[in-house]
């Protein structure tokens, strides 16, 4: 379980970093999305990886079998904020495409 999660985070981060270094705006936004998924999983992971345990205190259940609720709350906030800012970036990307006629991040194609 830990290995799968770690590999997934690693692969997504790697792809994301490579993509945001690309010159096309579409690649950049996909890269940023991948990175934010990776970060969300990462936040989830710092609370400890546990399956099938509730993040709620119940009488008679020892604390060690609880999932940490704080990272779950954090990741929820991070998802919402990340989603909103990505949507905003998408609008700017389209505006840039409309104004410059190219999808290069600098608004012009480099001379070939």
């Amino acid at each position, binding site marked *: 379980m830990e290995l799968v999660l770690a590999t997934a985070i690693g692969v997504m981060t790697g792809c994301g970093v490579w993509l945001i270094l690309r010159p096309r705006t579409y690649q950049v936004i996909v890269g940023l999305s991948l990175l934010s998924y990776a970060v969300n999983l990462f936040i989830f992971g710092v609370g400890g990886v546990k399956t099938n345990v509730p993040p709620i205190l119940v009488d008679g259940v020892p604390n060690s079998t609880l999932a940490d609720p704080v990272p779950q709350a954090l990741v929820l*906030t991070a998802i919402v904020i990340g989603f909103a800012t990505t949507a*905003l970036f998408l609008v700017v990307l389209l505006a840039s495409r409309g104004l410059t006629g190219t999808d290069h991040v600098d608004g012009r194609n480099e001379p070939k």
Partner: protein
Amino acid sequence: MTGWSHHLIIAPILVPLVVAALLLFFDERQRVVKAMISLASTLILVAVSLALLRIESGPNDFDGVYLLGNWAAPFGIVLVLDALSALMLLLTALLSVAALVFSLARWHAVGAHFHTMFQLLLVGLNGAFLTGDLFNLFVFFEVMLAASYGLLLHGSGPLRVKAGMHYIAVNLAAALLFLIGVSLIYGTAGTLNMADLAARIPDIEPDRRMLMEAGAGVLGIAFLIKAGMWPLCFWLPTAYSAASAPVAGIFAIMSKLGIYIILRLTMLLFGDGPSAGFGADVLLYGGIATIIFGTIGVLASQALGRLAGFSVLVSSGTLLMVLGINDGAISSGALLYLVSSTLTISAFFMLIELVERGQDAGAIVLAVTMEAYGDADEDEPEEGEGVTMPGTMAILGICFAACGILLSGLPPLSGFIAKFAMLSAMMGTGAIGVPPTATVWILVTLVILSGIAALISMTRAGIRTFWSSLEGTVPRVLVIEIVPVMFLLFLTLALTVQAGPAMQYMDTTIRSLSNPRIYIDAVRNAAVVPDYDGVSSTNTGSN
């Protein structure tokens, strides 16, 4: 600490938030109403932050901790008001009044929802200054950034969209780093409350400490991007010079937010104990690199907007460098420098727009070409005998000269006082016995050189703009546009006249920062408010 004055702490967040929501109910055509509401909000913010500053520095036992939701400290989110955050709140409020009044002349009308975004930016800034919780800081940071994306694009145009896109991409990446840092710190220390974190750091075992420090480092990068440390600063001059004038004016405080958080967290978390001085070298050498890059940029910029953008970097570099040394007396000089340079740069950004209004877009390029190829305007016919400099140009010229004096740190304005306070403290460390180290000499040289570079660049720009103006047209400047600029410059003058009390306040601030126990105890001992019927709140119960 009880009663209404205690609830005043949350006002700097609530007032702009409510106003921002309220403004959405008005149609864009009711511009005057919107402007008045927005202006009223910023004026209230000035009054509130003045009151907070007065309460905070008062003699009573005001602890400045506000428990949101009435949960005790490590469990609930807290707002903390101390001398530093009160100072930053006041600075933000003053800048916002100036920038808002400036925008009323024309800028607020060139796009939709200017006032709403402006108020939301203030929510984010004030919240980030007040919060005592790392994740809450992230939320306020994002509120501020989201508003700043909109404001940067305000007015549209290819240049703004291009600069805005770079700005958003950089800041989205920075936000992800912020999250990684926060979650690493949570994973190792088990808390996000800054005071609780500071108390727990000495007890973290060595293997987890390394992870915690890695988290703090990643977190630091996010703030350094905001502060504009080299090599994380290449977006800054372009973004700031592309923004419309009032927006750039308020953006001047945003780079100082990064500095503020770094100052707050290093003093609180890494003041003493096993992790003491963590990251100080990065700040020192990063600051040195930033100030060199900024100085070269100031010398190289032809457009005034870029000159101002690089001045932001010089100011950031100077502050980072001082944070890297982490010496009490130098830091209090640096705080004064922070206030002075923020006011200056904000005024300068707004002034630039007024000065450049008289010139058409090609004039600058033309002037540069003529400068390079000799005095081409030598044989230009004089337009008439004894042409008097009109009032507008005179006032603009005086303001420009004041900005130049402030940026280069010449007497008599506050730029000089601030730099003098820093430099004398740096040299003063040697007077006790040991001679100043090589590092200190480098810092002194860099601060002075950056001042000279600013002087050269401002003189060159001033001569080109005011004395050898090709067009000769006088820009039409409204009173409400020049008054905010003069207001900010007047504040620097007031800072000069009242340098004694101001320095005293900075000293007190730095002293309280260098003793993190005060902050930690205040947050930990903050009592929850009991219910009205006298029964202790359920929140303090067995949970």
